[in-house]
């Protein structure tokens, strides 16, 4: 969640109308842009495609037909940088080695709640390898009260909080020196359990109202929310009274309680960067989802012009929402570089990565759903508490607010402060938590109504995409053979489940690029946008290649550098939606210039020329062709270049919610085997059917769906940040006892895509990163219910949890 325009609503708890952000673009005078009327395909390929007219700016590239009529877009395309990645040629931030570079190590707190009385750096400074030290004045990632802004040092509010950093010529020396800094604390009472933190006599973590610092990193909850003790909220949506009255008209109601844990991001590449401070220029090689977000924060902190900060992210090893802005570590590395007059590399270690750079907040949810006998929803109510540690933004009401048609929806989201590391945006903030409750609630309702869970969803879900996705998925998982809950004999019981996702079609208009064609036939795409590992580099090559009649490998994609035109930050699944139309528009404009240059050589006018299969030729005489390279040589100038910008989404008749048109869908099915003797759950197969508008690279999209499913299974069954209740110390700060799905936990994953056209931009593409992980945990839980006939309402569903649930059922029935 990078953009201010996109952060607040869908991150924590989307408003009824998912925002279509209109980034504040400079208006170029009062002149209205010229518009054309164009015809676009609209609908779902293979179901129904209609032609619809749109008024679009004259600068837009012409409409694309559906994928089956295209040469490059929509065709499975191997990553253009795949070879560089698997051979190690690709350089990540931790691979940057500059002459004279120093290594930095964080100094972190060892107590959960304290005021710093003194800091003694003398022993550290006496170490022969000591080069520089910098101590922070505040925790840049956490919430803060007005009062403490006067303090010299940060208030300590959790174990592992960054307080400063040192640097030295080797990492080993830096590690040693950091341990020599002696900090004296005045310790205060603390609380790490959200249930206890809610109690009136709990130790207070923030005296006074706390707001999470508004960095480009997003995360954080809504502003100006009332705070009572450690409870910040509730943020209410809808009318409580209306929902209560509506429940009275329900024939059937279900009420369930749910709990979800704190999950840390665990990107394989930890947070970090190399900062190289020079008097006239700061250059930073950062592992970030937003090159410009790092630039902007560093420029602000160090009082530099944005033109004096260059941020480079050529390759990146995962972020999942946690890598925006400079962060404590980035600001520290830059201070150290400035003080030591040398480049400084600061990469977090795995312990720090778990503790201080974000997580998915927990949730404690109470859900009530009321329906008529035929399944029609009459009211839904969700009350959710969650802890984002010393951060904010633990809301989980997004799915309840947005997934189903229901006349009375009332939700309350509250944050509970605890002495734990702050959350940050994490792949579909609030949504895997919210879907875990809602989708089990819907299944539970279906059972009470004696309806098939898919039939109920057909009744209450107005999304055309999900309707088709349910149809495809049901067929592929073998839904018709699904047995009643708990009907398998023997200790190992199998079950099939379904759950649905919603996410939003968000884009950032402040997205730009250049496309250049040079006489030697080289084609370049340039933008600050970064490839966070999801494959936008390849998708951009495909779009430019499609427009110029070339192959993706013919295009040189230069991205991840703030020296290039401003690109979008990658959060909220905005990247493809934001930058792909820009690439298409720029490529089209470059094409027009290019054809204007080469038309005389072919003796025709430019508008009579076509580009396809690597050739340029008159439309009415394809035999009279030049290869692209030959044609480029005919250019009268060395280079043609065109700028592409993101116009607003094209206007369409459908509203933001109508027929699911405001959101992206996604329906997942899975089969599990539950060993009732051991409580062990094995996910055997997942069918994940998704939509992302027009898929540009189905291979890349399916790869992201695989990743979303894997991360979702890991969340459902294994991952859990465990804080020692008596000391506040996280006890599993590694990848051994912080458990993540490994190779043997992989199910067969059948990722399926539908193509849904909306006629909203020149590519009509949207993102997939977030929807791909929303439904998984709920889907596994529903399948477990089908297997054993016991509803598991908390994650991770460990053997301990499953055995306990089985035992309490046995007790109840005895």
């Amino acid at each position, binding site marked *: 969640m990078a953009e201010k325009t996109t952060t607040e609503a869908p991150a924590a708890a989307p408003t009824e109308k998912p925002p279509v952000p209109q980034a504040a673009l400079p208006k170029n005078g009062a002149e209205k842009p010229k518009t054309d009327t164009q015809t676009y395909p609209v609908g779902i390929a293979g179901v129904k495609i209609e032609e619809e007219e749109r008024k679009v700016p004259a600068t837009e590239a012409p409409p694309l037909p559906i994928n089956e009529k295209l040469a490059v877009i929509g065709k499975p395309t191997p990553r253009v940088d795949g070879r560089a990645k698997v051979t190690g040629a690709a350089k990540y931030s931790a691979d940057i080695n500059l002459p004279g570079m120093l290594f930095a190590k964080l100094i972190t707190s*060892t107590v959960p709640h304290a005021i710093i009385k003194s800091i003694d750096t003398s022993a550290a400074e006496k170490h022969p390898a000591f080069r520089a030290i910098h101590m922070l004045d505040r925790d840049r990632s956490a919430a803060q009260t007005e009062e403490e802004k006067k303090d010299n040092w940060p208030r300590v509010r959790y*174990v592992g909080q960054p307080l400063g950093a040192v640097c030295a010529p080797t990492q*080993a020396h830096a*590690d040693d020196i950091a341990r020599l800094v002696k900090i004296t604390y005045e310790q205060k009472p603390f609380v790490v359990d959200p249930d206890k933190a809610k109690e009136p006599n709990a130790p207070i973590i923030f005296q006074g109202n706390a707001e999470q610092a508004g960095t480009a990193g997003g995360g954080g909850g809504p502003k100006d929310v009332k705070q009572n003790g450690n409870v910040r909220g509730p943020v209410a949506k809808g009318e409580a009274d209306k929902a209560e009255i509506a429940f009275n008209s329900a024939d059937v109601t279900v009420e369930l309680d749910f709990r979800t844990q704190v999950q840390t991001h665990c990107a394989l590449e930890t947070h970090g960067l190399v900062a190289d401070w020079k008097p006239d220029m700061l250059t930073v090689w950062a592992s970030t989802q937003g090159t410009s977000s790092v630039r902007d924060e560093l420029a602000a902190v160090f009082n530099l012009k944005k033109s004096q900060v260059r941020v480079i992210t050529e390759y990146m090893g995962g972020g999942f929402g946690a890598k925006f802005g400079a962060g404590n570590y980035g600001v520290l590395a830059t201070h150290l570089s400035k003080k030591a007059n040398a480049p400084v590399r600061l990469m977090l270690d795995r312990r720090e990565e778990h503790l201080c750079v974000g997580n998915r907040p927990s949730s404690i949810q109470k859900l009530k759903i009321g329906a008529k006998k035929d399944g029609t929803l009459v009211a839904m109510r969700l009350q959710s508490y969650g802890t984002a540690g010393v951060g904010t933004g633990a809301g989980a009401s997004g799915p309840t607010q947005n997934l189903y048609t229901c006349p009375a929806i009332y939700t309350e989201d509250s944050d509970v402060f605890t002495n734990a590391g702050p959350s940050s945006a994490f792949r579909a903030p609030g949504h895997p938590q919210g879907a875990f409750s809602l989708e089990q609630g819907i299944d539970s309702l279906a059972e009470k109504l004696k309806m098939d869970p898919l039939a109920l969803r057909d009744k209450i879900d107005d999304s055309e995409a999900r309707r088709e996705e349910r149809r495809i998925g049901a067929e592929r998982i073998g839904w018709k053979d699904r047995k009643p809950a708990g009907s398998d004999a023997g*200790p190992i019981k199998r079950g099939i489940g379904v759950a649905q996702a919603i996410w939003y079609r968000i884009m950032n208009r402040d997205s730009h690029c250049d496309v250049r064609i040079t006489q030697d036939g080289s084609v370049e795409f340039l933008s600050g946008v970064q490839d966070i590992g999801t494959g936008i580099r390849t998708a951009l090559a495909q779009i430019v290649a499609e427009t110029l009649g070339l192959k993706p490998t013919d295009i040189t994609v230069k991205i991840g550098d703030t020296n290039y035109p401003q690109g979008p930050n990658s959060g909220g699944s905005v990247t493809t939606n934001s930058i792909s139309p820009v690439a298409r528009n720029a490529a089209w404009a470059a094409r027009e210039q290019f054809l204007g240059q080469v038309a005389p050589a072919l003796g025709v006018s430019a508008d009579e020329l076509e580009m396809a299969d690597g050739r340029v030729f008159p439309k009415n005489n394809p035999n009279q062709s030049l290869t692209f390279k030959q044609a480029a040589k005919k250019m009268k100038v060395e280079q043609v270049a065109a700028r592409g910008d993101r116009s607003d989404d094209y206007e369409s008749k459908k509203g933001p919610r109508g027929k699911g048109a405001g959101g992206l869908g996604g329906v997942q099915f899975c089969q599990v085997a539950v060993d009732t*003797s*051991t*409580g*062990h759950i094995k996910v055997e197969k997942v069918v994940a059917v998704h939509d992302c508008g027009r898929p540009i690279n189905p291979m890349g999209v399916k790869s992201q769906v695989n990743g979303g499913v894997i991360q979702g299974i890991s969340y459902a*069954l*294994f991952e859990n940040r*465990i*804080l*020692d*209740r*008596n*000391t506040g*110390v996280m*006890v*599993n700060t590694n990848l*051994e*006892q912080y*458990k993540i*799905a*490994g*190779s*043997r*936990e992989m199910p067969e994953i059948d990722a399926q895509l539908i193509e849904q056209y909306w006629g909203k931009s020149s590519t009509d593409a949207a993102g997939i990163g977030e929807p791909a992980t929303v439904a998984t945990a709920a889907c596994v839980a529903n399948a477990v219910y089908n297997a054993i006939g016991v509803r598991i309402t908390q994650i991770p569903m*460990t*053997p*301990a949890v499953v*055995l*306990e649930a089985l*035992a309490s059922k046995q007790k109840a029935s005895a």
Partner: protein
Amino acid sequence: MNNFEWADAKSIDEAQSLMTDASAYKAGGVDLLDLMKEHIAAPKRIVNIRNLQGFDQIKEDGGVLHLGPLLTLAQIADDKTIRSKWSAIADAAANAATPQIRNMATLGGNLLQRPRCWYFRNELFPCRKKGGEICYAQQGENQYHAIFNNQLCAIVHPSALACALVAHGAKLELSGAKNQKREVLLEEFLTLPSVDLHRENSIQSGELITDIRVPTPRADAKSIYIKQGEKESFDWPIAEIAMVLTMDGETCKSASIVLGAAAPVPHRATEAEQAITGKKVDEQSAGAAAKAALATATPLALNGYKLALFENLLTRTLLQAKGNA
């Protein structure tokens, strides 16, 4: 991690002469490196014994299987001789850790590795095992801790191979200074916190394991090892069972049953052994034996689930042993 001196030993004698109180032997180095990174161990000198020759044998001789202490877990997992009569040992090695670790970790190092208790492994906790006053697990996050003998220190013994070897009645040959050798039953070598709070065994200063000796079981014996983790890849067990059973038809003649991830040492389930010996193995007798095994358990606040887990697994494993008969 501290700075240290590296000493490469060419012989047992040299290794022992290089050893001081501030030194540590290193075979595979898997556990030692972990301990040093976490500042739990800080040896001034590392005595590398990885390259000693002749300590990677697998040889059956006169009713005893000799296993060299420098065998890797991968070699043990893959060996046909071991698998033929001591399959519990092969399976314990095969199911441990990851392929990379199994290629590095040695049998001797595996038996001597320190516990994985997250309080022990974190320098912020001055726990009883490290000379402090408190066992933080007692009132803390104890879901993975011991359900037997857990009052002083609630670690579980980390070695799967130890479980299988104890079930098989293995002995260790230990070599001290001046080539003084002693033989000790592994089950007695591994000690409870009540014997020594700070260590998990009775190895003497400078001593090295030079041979692991496993009796050849009777031809009709069943050797079984079962690991139950939360995950199947790269995870520690939440319960494990090693079992050597001899059967006469459907009747159990003798049983050696060990529970792992249950106690600070591999836990010999003598109550279960007595309950099943001489009985026809069926659902009822297996279930009764399993119940008997757990009768003396003293679970902590968060590990009560292990009772049902062990009971079910043990019942299942006994029936499986019978099925194989």
